[in-house]
């Protein structure tokens, strides 16, 4: 069901990638460069199948607790998101954000980043901050809420 648009999309991307002769007439997406040496899968494969890989990884992480450092959405961000010239990270809506470069081009909207951060960051459990406020001195208890 959901595979049909994906297949059409894959065909479109494949057609764009495999037809340099047409490139002159077609505007091409400007894909920001990645940091790492190579992706977790061959680039050609990722272009067509990244969504299935992400769906599988997401299921495994959420349901089975199988968490990969690189093969994960945060892993993707760590290689594919860099600071812009002005020193900030592109927002999830920005056309300069890696995912948007192609997704805008092909008109496929994604909603990953309404929950997930689109910035690089440490993958894996973060330590509990030792500098946390002293007991009783935090702002979580609202005045007058505990009636």
């Amino acid at each position, binding site marked *: 069901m959901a595979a049909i648009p994906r297949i059409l999309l894959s065909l479109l991307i494949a057609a764009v990638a495999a037809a340099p002769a047409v490139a002159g007439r077609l505007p091409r997406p400007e894909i920001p460069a990645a940091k790492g040496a190579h992706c977790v899968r061959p680039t050609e494969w990722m272009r067509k199948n990244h969504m299935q890989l992400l769906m599988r990884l997401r299921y495994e992480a959420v349901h089975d607790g199988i968490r990969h450092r690189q093969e994960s959405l945060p892993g993707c961000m760590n290689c594919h998101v860099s600071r812009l010239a002005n020193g900030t990270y592109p927002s999830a809506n920005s056309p300069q954000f890696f995912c948007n470069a192609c997704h805008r081009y092909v008109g496929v909207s994604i*909603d990953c980043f309404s929950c997930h951060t689109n910035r690089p960051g440490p993958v894996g459990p973060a330590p509990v901050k030792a500098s946390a406020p002293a007991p009783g001195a935090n702002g*979580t*208890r*609202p005045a007058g*809420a*505990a009636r």
Partner: protein
Amino acid sequence: MSAIHYREIEGRGAGFWVLAALLAGLIAAGLTAAWFMEHIGHVITGMTNQVVWGMPHVIAVFLIVAASGALNTASIASVFGKVAYKPLARLSGLLAIALLSGGLLVLVLDLGRPDRLAVAMTHYNFRSIFAWNIFLYTGFLAVTGAYLWVMMERRLNDHTRRVGTAAFLWRLILTTGTGSIFGFLVARQPYDEAIMAPMFILMSFAFGLAILLLVLMSACKATGRPLGDAIVMRLKNLLGVFAAAVLYFLLAFHVTKLYQAEFDGAEAFLLRDGGVYTLLFWGGAVFLGGVLPMLLFWLPQTRRSRAAVVWGSLSVVAGGLALLYDIIVGGQAWPLSIFPGMQVSSSFYDGVVNAYTPSLPECALGLAGCAWAAFVTLFALKLLPFMPQSLADDAVEPPARIAGAGATDAAA
């Protein structure tokens, strides 16, 4: 007269278009509200982490419950063979579909992620009564649609009884499912009674019939079609019985609760100390929903009055909304009992009565569901012959015959 003649309403006058425009405006306002609720978030509603279901759910549940009740008139005709109700069977089926679609519209647009409706259609947890309801609702639309078809297509009239029976059983299961959404919630003291399922069925009988009566009387009046006392008084008496039955179930429900010391606090809140919820229960559900209609329908001074039928039906609708607000919102206002017998306080509203004030967007969304139901009904009446040309007394009291065997269509 032996044949019932159905005909579309004309729908050309200024009144028709003004009404249509008004309803379209309400629908547009509700859709706008839903867009804001999705894009800004539920922060613009009165619903919180304490009162998680609010006004949209009150109205949606009302419409859904009323939808299954609206079908009853048709069922009485085709399943139980009461010929006198037969002329209303088509209108009854139409209202069922219109009301249910209005309720579903509200329910779906209130979701945190209405964009994921496809997920709700492809991922099912069959232990969830909510998931079953998705099938019950869509199935109800399909079965009622088929029912209307066999009633309106003369060559299929012979199947009316069979399809009508299926629709009747389906609607009983559907309302059981709707009542069980609340009845199965063991965590919340104001719910947690299996009697809520049959209570919802009786509520549906009353709400649906009240709406049918109101639509019937206003449509006949607006189109100048004769509407005899025979049918109106018959329906009115039935509505009085249904209103009384709802009162009976409310009594049984609360007496059961009061008998168990565990629920004393919750019951005292809802019935005595709950402020607006207490008022809605006694003034709304009991008086408007039950006592006043019965008085209007049966007191010697008003029992022959058409106006009393209209006011009584409106009163049942108002009482029904009050009852659902009381059940849904009042049931959440009462705090959860996590530490029974203890006094509790926290930064997360433990142990306090939760406040809820409906906001404009959520009311607009709820109203849009009602407007949608009315809009669908209005245009269906214009496009297809749902309404009998005459419901004058001599047209609706045919000699006793088996239902479904004699009606001829005269769709001009």
